[in-house]
C-alpha cells in the first residue's frame, strides 16, 4: 500500500479543521448605516482632473460643494453662494458667499478659495475645465464676494457652475510637490488624487486605489444631515455582472453601476427587494452620426432615405429597452428641448422616394456605406446588425466594422479617416439644450468622436453662438428650438433613443429620492449621500428571512 491510509486520514482531518475554522471567521460590518454603490474604478476625485464620467461625478459632489445647486427641475438654487447677480450683458457674474462654511480641516471657505479653485481648474485644463474657457478672470471683491469676468455674453453660465466645486486653497498649498506649475509645484495634484480638500457632506476615509473609496459623514457640514443618512459611503470598484448580482442578493451592495446589461438588470429586478431606478440626466441621445462630407452620406436625400428606413420601434424596444424614441438631437428632459421637432418613423415608401431623388440612386453598389462601431460595446453591435438589415430593405449596402475604441477615436479625429457612420451617444456638458447642440454640431468641437457629422456649417455656428449669448431664458429656448428644427431638416443624424441610465438598488432598505422624481436631474447630484437614507434594521429583517 503506497498511500498510507492513516496519513491520508490525518491530513484530510487537518484540512477540514482549517477550512471550518476559516469559514467561521466573519467580519462585522464597519458601520451598520453604510451605503455602497458600484462603479468602474479609476475614481479621479481631484475636481480639476475628474471629468463627466460616472466614476468621477459619483464621489465629487459628496466630497465637495458647488456655488449653486440644481433643484428638482435643474434650475440653480443657492448653495455656497447665497445670492448672485449678473451684469446686464451677462459678462460679469458676482456671487455673495454664505458665511461659516467649513472645509474638512475646520478652516472657513472664503472668496479666496473660490478664486483659487477656478484658477487651478483652468491652469490644469482637465476635467470640466473646458466649460470655463469662457471665464476671462476671477476677482475677489471682499472676503465673501467673488466675481467672474466672462469673455463674452454666455447665458447658461449658471448651469455650467454645477460642474464647478470649491477646493481649499490652504490645504492644497500645504501639500504641493515638485511640478510644472512654477511656484505652485504640482498644484496639489499628487495630494488631491487620494485626499480631499473639500467642504462636502462626506470626507475621504480610506482609498485603496484599485479596490474601493470609503467616505465618512462630515459632522460639521453647514447643512443638517438627517441621522438616517449613511454614516459611511463606499464606492466599490467592480462592474462584473456575476459579482454585482452576488453582492446585491447578499445585501452587500445598495446601488449597482450604470453599465449593467438588460439581462442582468432584469434578473436583479426580479430579485426580492431590488428595483431598477432610471433617469435621463445624462442628456445623451443614441444616434447614428452620418458624415455629411463623404459620399454617399454627403447627399441629403440619401441620408433622409436612411432615416425613413430605420426600424425605430425594434431599436428602442428590444435593444435599448425601457426608454423612448428620440425626437431630435436634444433629450426630452433637457431644458430647452423642443417637442415640436419632427420625428422619423419607419416608412419604406418614403425611404425609396427620397432615395430616388439622390444622385447615388442608380449606383448604390459603387457607394457602400461604412459603419464603424465600438467593438467593446455589445449594444452597438446589435444596433449595427439591425441597421444593415434595415438598409438592405431599400437596397443600400452597409459595410460594418467592429473597431477597437482606441482606433475609433483616432479615425474620428480627421475627415479623411472618418467612416460614413458611427453610433454613440454624448453626455450633455451641462443641463441645457444649447450645450448639446454646440457639442454635437459646432465647427469648433468637430474632430473628435462626439461628432462624426463634419457639418462645418457657418450658419449653424452663428446661430448657436447667438443663442448662447441670449440672456433671456424664453428667448434663448426659442432659438434652441429653431436650431433643433434646423438640424433635423438637414438630417445629418439619425436619432434613435434618449439615453436612459438604469441602476439596480435595494428598494427595501434604502430611501432614494431619485425614484420619486425628487432628485436634481444632473449626473452625480442624484446620489449625494445626504439625500439618501439607509435603514439597517430593514436590511437585517431581509437577511434573516
Amino acid at each position: 500500500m503506497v498511500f498510507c491510509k492513516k496519513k491520508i486520514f490525518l491530513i484530510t482531518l487537518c484540512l477540514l479543521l482549517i477550512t471550518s475554522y476559516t469559514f467561521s471567521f466573519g467580519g462585522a460590518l464597519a458601520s451598520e448605516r453604510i451605503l455602497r454603490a458600484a462603479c468602474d474604478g479609476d475614481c479621479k476625485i481631484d475636481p480639476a482632473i475628474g471629468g463627466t464620467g460616472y466614476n468621477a461625478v459619483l464621489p465629487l459632489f459628496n466630497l465637495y460643494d458647488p456655488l449653486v445647486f440644481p433643484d428638482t427641475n435643474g434650475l440653480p438654487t443657492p448653495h455656497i453662494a447665497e445670492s448672485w447677480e449678473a451684469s446686464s450683458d451677462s459678462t460679469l457674474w458676482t456671487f455673495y458667499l454664505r458665511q461659516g462654511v467649513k472645509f474638512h480641516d475646520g478652516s472657513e471657505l472664503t472668496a479666496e478659495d473660490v478664486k483659487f479653485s477656478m484658477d487651478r481648474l483652468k491652469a490644469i485644463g482637465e476635467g470640466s475645465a473646458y466649460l470655463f474657457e469662457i471665464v476671462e478672470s476671477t476677482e475677489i471683491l471682499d472676503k465673501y464676494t467673488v466675481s467672474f469676468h466672462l469673455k463674452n455674453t454666455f447665458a447658461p453660465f449658471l448651469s455650467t457652475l454645477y460642474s464647478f466645486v470649491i477646493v481649499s486653497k490652504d490645504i492644497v498649498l500645504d501639500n504641493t510637490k515638485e511640478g510644472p506649475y512654477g511656484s505652485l509645484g504640482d498644484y496639489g495634484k499628487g495630494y488631491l488624487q487620494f485626499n480631499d480638500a473639500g467642504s462636502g457632506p462626506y470626507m475621504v476615509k480610506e482609498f485603496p486605489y484599485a479596490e474601493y473609496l470609503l467616505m465618512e459623514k462630515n459632522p460639521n457640514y453647514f447643512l443638517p444631515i438627517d441621522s438616517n443618512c449613511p454614516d459611511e459611503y463606499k464606492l466599490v470598484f467592480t462592474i462584473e455582472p456575476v459579482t454585482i448580482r452576488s453582492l446585491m442578493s447578499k445585501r452587500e451592495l445598495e446601488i449597482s453601476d450604470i453599465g449593467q446589461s438588460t439581462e442582468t438588470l432584469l434578473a436583479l429586478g426580479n430579485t426580492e427587494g431590488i428595483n431598477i431606478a432610471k433617469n435621463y440626466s445624462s442628456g445623451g441621445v443614441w444616434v447614428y452620426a452620418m458624415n455629411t462630407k463623404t459620399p454617399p452620406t454627403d447627399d441629403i436625400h440619401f441620408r433622409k432615405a436612411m432615416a425613413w428606413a430605420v426600424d425605430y420601434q425594434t431599436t428602442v424596444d428590444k435593444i435599448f429597452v425601457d426608454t423612448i424614441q428620440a425626437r431630435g438631437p436634444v433629450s426630452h428632459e433637457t431644458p430647452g428641448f423642443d417637442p415640436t421637432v419632427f420625428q422619423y418613423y419607419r416608412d419604406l415608401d418614403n425611404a425609396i422616394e427620397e432615395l430616388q431623388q439622390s444622385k447615388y440612386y442608380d449606383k448604390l453598389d459603387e457607394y457602400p456605406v461604412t459603419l464603424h462601431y465600438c467593438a467593446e460595446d455589445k449594444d452597438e453591435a446589435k444596433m449595427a446588425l439591425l441597421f444593415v438589415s434595415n438598409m438592405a430593405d431599400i437596397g443600400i449596402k452597409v459595410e460594418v466594422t467592429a473597431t477597437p475604441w482606441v482606433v475609433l477615436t483616432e479615425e474620428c479625429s480627421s475627415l479623411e479617416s472618418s467612416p460614413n457612420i458611427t453610433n454613440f451617444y454624448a453626455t450633455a456638458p451641462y443641463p441645457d439644450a444649447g450645450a448639446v447642440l454646440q457639442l454635437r454640431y459646432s465647427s469648433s468641437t468637430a474632430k473628435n468622436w462626439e461628432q462624426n457629422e463634419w457639418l462645418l456649417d457657418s450658419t449653424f455656428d452663428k446661430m448657436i453662438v447667438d443663442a448662447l449669448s441670449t440672456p433671456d431664458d424664453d428667448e434663448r429656448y426659442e432659438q434652441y428650438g429653431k436650431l433643433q428644427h434646423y438640424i433635423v431638416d438637414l438630417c445629418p443624424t439619425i436619432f434613435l433613443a434618449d439615453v436612459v441610465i438604469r441602476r439596480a438598488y435595494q428598494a427595501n432598505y434604502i430611501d432614494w429620492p431619485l425614484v420619486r422624481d425628487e432628485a436634481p436631474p444632473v449626473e452625480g447630484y442624484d446620489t449625494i449621500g445626504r439625500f439618501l437614507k439607509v435603514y439597517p434594521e430593514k436590511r437585517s429583517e431581509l437577511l434573516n428571512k
Partner: protein
Amino acid sequence: MLPPFIILLNMKKKIEIIMKRFTQSIIVLVGLSILIFALTRLMPGDPARLALGPRAPEWAVEQLRDEMYLNEPLYIQYKYWAKGALRGNLGISLVTRRPVAQDIKEFFPASLELALFTGIFVGIMGALMGSMSGWYNNTWIDNVIRVIAYIGVVTPPFVWAIFLILVFSYFLELLPTIGRLTAGIIVPPKITGLVTIDALFAGRLDVFFDALKHLILPVLSLSLGPLSQEARITRASVVANINKDFILNAKICGISERKIFFKYLLKPSLIPTISVLGLDFAGIFAFAFLVEKIFDWPGLSRYCMIALLKKDFSAIVGTILVLGIVFTVVNIVVDLIISFLDPRIDLERGR
C-alpha cells in the same frame, strides 16, 4: 558522501552558471523593453488625447504630450525612459496618474499572494492526483481522476470563478465575493504586502483566516485548470517511469512499494511537473486578469490589462518588464530545482 572540496567545486560551478544565466536574462530583458517600447508607440491612437477625453482643450493635451516626450523621436523617448528606469522611475501612468513604480509596488504583492497559494495548491494536489493516477493506472481511481482532469483542462479560469461564486457565494453564502479582507477589519502593518504573511507577522490570526477565506475562491478558480494539466503530466511521467529498469530492479530486490514510490519514482517523475508549475506560477501574474476582475482583486494582471486597453504607455512597458523579470527568475529557479532532482540534467545547457 562526496568529499567537501568536490561539493564546493560543484557549488562554484553552479554559481558560475547562475551568473551566466543572470547576464543572459538582463540582455533578454533589455531587448524586451525595446520591443515593447516600440510596439506601444506604433499602436494607433493618441494616448494624451485618449487620457484627457475629447473635450479637453488642445493646449492641455499638448502639455501632456510634452510631459511624456511624445513629440520627440522614438530613440530619445527610449533614452529618457531607460535613464529613469535605471533609477527606479518607470514614468507616470496615464490612467492612475501616479508613478508606475508605485502602482506596481502596490499591485505586485496581491498577485504574488494569489500566485503563491495557487502554486502551492496546484503543485501538491497536481502531483498527488497525477501520481496516484499513474501508480494505479488503468484502475477506477485513474479513470475518475482522468475525467476530472479533462474537465479541468478545457474549462477557462473565469468560468470556474463564476461557477464558484454562484455556488459558494450566491447560493450557499459560505464565502465572500470580493476583496482581500472583510470590510472593517483592521489591516495589519504592511511588511511584505501579502496580507496572510503580514497577519502572521503581526500575530493576528483572525486577519490571517479572514484573508484565507477571501483567497479560497480566487485560488480555486485559478488552480483547477493548471491542476488538471499537472495531474495529466505527472501521470504520464509516472507511467513512463514505472516500467523502467531501475523500478523493476527495486521491485525484484524486495523494496517496499511505499519506498519505491517516494524514494525512487517521485523525483524523476516530477521534473516535467515542476517545469510546467513554474510557467503556471509566472503565468498567473500575467493572465489572471479576468479572475482578478471578477473578484475585485487588486492584482498586476488587471492593472496591465487596463493599461493595454487604455494605451497607457508607461504602465504597459513597466508591467511587461516586471512580468518579464518574473518569468526569467522563475525559469532560473525551476532549472535549479530540476538539476537538484536529477543531477544528470546539465544545468548549463538546461537539458
